[in-house]
């Protein structure tokens, strides 16, 4: 990317490279097929389906944010409209007994997302950056508010429902059981991810990165950044529509929440927490965010607060996301400095964990005293039952947080020194530029 004169890699590298290139996708397919055999419970299958949908949605979002540098707050518009069109499509197909099976329905969602992206994208993508962010938010509000007005199409507050088993059955699959839905979602996820990966390898995909990094120079080489952004917007809308269609099939319902700001926020959270600078970032993020939201919402009533705080921490301390953090260690690992770094991490882990535990305990105590006051004084934090009216518990919370912070500060400086040292050695050995 940085060096234009470097020879492009051959389209079909031979030998080891070929195996590695196709091997990853084949391995992914094998894992997807094998997963339900290992975790066969209904809850696991539902979780996997949700993760798959979330992966497509987050990756489609990353076409905008990570690859083209457009921060969108309204990506759920295309997800939601894809979902609604898919529901209407399913109802029509079931009514007309058409020869179209369920696995093709997400395409309806995709085409719907694409169509609306084509319509709304040209105005939205005129500028990138903050302006684009505001416009995307405004358009999202426009569509979300309109959805509540146009009741016959969007079904008002209740939404519209469908029955996925009424469509044409192929190979005797009715798509009633979750396992069949899982396989369909897995198939679409793999297809969509491969397609999106292929897009990043096209000249257009490279131009997207160029538009992100330096739109002015893109104009000098004869491209119109607006057109490239518009195309990126349309592709993103298409894949978001597929995700929306899959979601509509999974839940058999679509309502106005599909189009809302919260749904757009999920895509943003998943993509950014995972890491927008790497292709696998949004995949990691989607898995992490979906799993975490399922687990946390079981444990605590204020899970969204923790979520927001995690997001803020990622933005401030690890702008590369989880994938960025991991990839940062690659040169260090290759230089053989990981062990000394791990030692520093372990030292810092103890006070930091104590601080976080103190904060979490404090939040849980407050929640029990305000919103959930009716549930009695006993709270369960990290599996330990505590009495939230007990002053000792309050002191414990404050003490952990303060002492953890005071000690943690020293260890963080120690980690920073260890990192600098490791990076210096990696640089000397030529692994780090």
């Amino acid at each position, binding site marked *: 990317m940085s060096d234009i004169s470097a020879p492009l890699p051959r389209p079909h590298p031979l030998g080891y490279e070929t195996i590695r290139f196709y091997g990853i996708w084949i391995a992914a397919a094998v894992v997807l097929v094998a997963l339900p055999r290992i975790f066969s419970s209904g809850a696991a299958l539902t979780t996997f389906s949700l993760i798959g949908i979330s992966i497509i949605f987050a990756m489609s979002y990353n076409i905008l*944010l990570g690859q083209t*540098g457009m*921060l969108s*707050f309204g990506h759920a518009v295309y997800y939601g409209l894809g979902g609604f069109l898919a529901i209407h499509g399913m109802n029509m197909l079931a009514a007309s007994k058409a020869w179209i099976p369920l696995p093709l329905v997400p395409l309806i969602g995709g085409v719907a997302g694409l169509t609306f992206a084509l319509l709304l994208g040209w*105005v939205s993508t*005129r*500028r990138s*950056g*903050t*302006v684009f*962010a*505001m*416009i995307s*938010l*405004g*358009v*999202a*509000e*426009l569509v979300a*508010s*309109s959805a509540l*007005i*146009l*009741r*016959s*199409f969007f079904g008002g507050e209740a939404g519209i429902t469908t029955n996925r088993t009424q469509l044409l059955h192929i190979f005797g699959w009715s798509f009633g059981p979750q396992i069949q839905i899982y396989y369909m979602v897995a198939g679409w996820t793999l297809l969509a991810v491969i397609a999106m990966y292929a897009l990043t390898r096209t000249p257009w995909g490279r131009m997207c990165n160029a538009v992100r990094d330096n739109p002015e120079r893109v104009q000098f080489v004869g491209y119109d950044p607006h057109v490239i952004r518009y195309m990126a917007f349309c592709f993103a809308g298409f894949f978001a529509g597929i995700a929306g269609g899959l979601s509509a099939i999974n839940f058999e319902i679509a309502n106005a929440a599909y189009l809302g*700001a919260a749904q757009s*926020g999920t895509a*943003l959270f998943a993509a*950014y927490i995972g890491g927008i600078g790497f292709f696998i970032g949004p995949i990691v993020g989607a898995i992490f965010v979906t799993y975490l939201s399922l687990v946390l919402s079981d444990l605590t009533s*204020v899970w*969204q*607060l923790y*979520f*927001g*705080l995690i*997001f*803020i921490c990622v*933005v*401030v301390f690890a*702008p590369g996301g989880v994938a960025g953090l991991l990839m940062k260690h690659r040169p260090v690992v290759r230089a053989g400095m990981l062990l000394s770094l791990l030692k520093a991490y372990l030292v810092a882990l103890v006070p930091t964990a104590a601080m976080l535990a103190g904060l979490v305990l404090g*939040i849980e105590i*407050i*929640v029990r005293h*305000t*919103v959930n006051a009716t549930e009695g004084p006993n709270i369960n934090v990290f599996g330990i039952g505590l009495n939230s009216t007990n002053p000792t518990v309050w002191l414990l919370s404050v003490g952990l947080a303060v002492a953890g912070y005071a000690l943690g500060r020293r260890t963080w400086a120690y980690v920073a020194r260890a990192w600098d040292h490791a990076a210096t050695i990696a640089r000397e050995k030529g692994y780090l530029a």
Partner: protein
Amino acid sequence: MFELIIISTLNGVLFGMLLFLMASGLTVIFSMLGVLNFAHSSFYMLGAFFGFQLSRWVGFWPALVIGPALAGLLGAAVERFGLRNAHKNGHVAELLFTFGLAFAIEEVVQMIWGKSPVDYRVPVALDFPAFTVFSTNYPAYKMFMLVVSVAIFAVLLISVKRTRVGLIVQAALTHPHMVGHLGHNVGRIFMLVFGFGTALAAVAGVIAGPALITQSNMASLFGPILFVVVVVGGLGSLPGAFIASLLIGLLQTFAVSINGSLASVLGPLGPDHAFLSDIWNVTVAQIAPILPYVLMVLILIFRPMGLLGTRET
């Protein structure tokens, strides 16, 4: 009809001035720091909840001062300890930081005050009708809101145009480096401006709380409209933000009071199709919430720099 026009104009100007109290802070923060403060309307919400809680403890009038001051301090702390750290990762990171902050503030408010509306009442001293237009009583509290917001607007205008502090702020908007070379602490100016802007939003919250509904979703209701104001007025233009605030305030208030629909104008020509008849039968009052966004899209198509903006958006 005449009565409706007078009442709607008053309400519209009032809503517009409230919007401007927030949009002015947002615009100045955007011009100076280059960051769009997503959490701006969250500080408006914090203002309303602080006002509610403080008026229970110490009464409404002290709350009107202490609430915004607290929110302003919080805002300054956010700039100093949060935004400045995010700044080194670029503008997108800053925007995302404020986005995450807005999310977190909403959750914290829900955690402390719950999800349902709180009982934030108009102070007794102002709970009487100010005057009667034809048969409608106009509440004194609304007049009070209007007076407060106009007064703040006037003070703001004078202090930006006529005082030394205002001069430095204006200079820091366009030439932060030069202002730094002249010996001013630009970082501190940014922090103060951020704190002051959030305090203004909190004033709007404290005085709007009793008149509107004080609830944990009030930030997310107001936030997008604020951005519309900023885009329509022109990015970074204070007079533009003023005009756009009034425009949107009047537009929405008048739309809410009109009950007509295409069906009531054109009558029996209505289409049979369900989807079209939805559009046919929707009243102007029902589409009032989406009108600001329609206006924004139109502005973006026909005048991308906004009403008074100089930069193309």
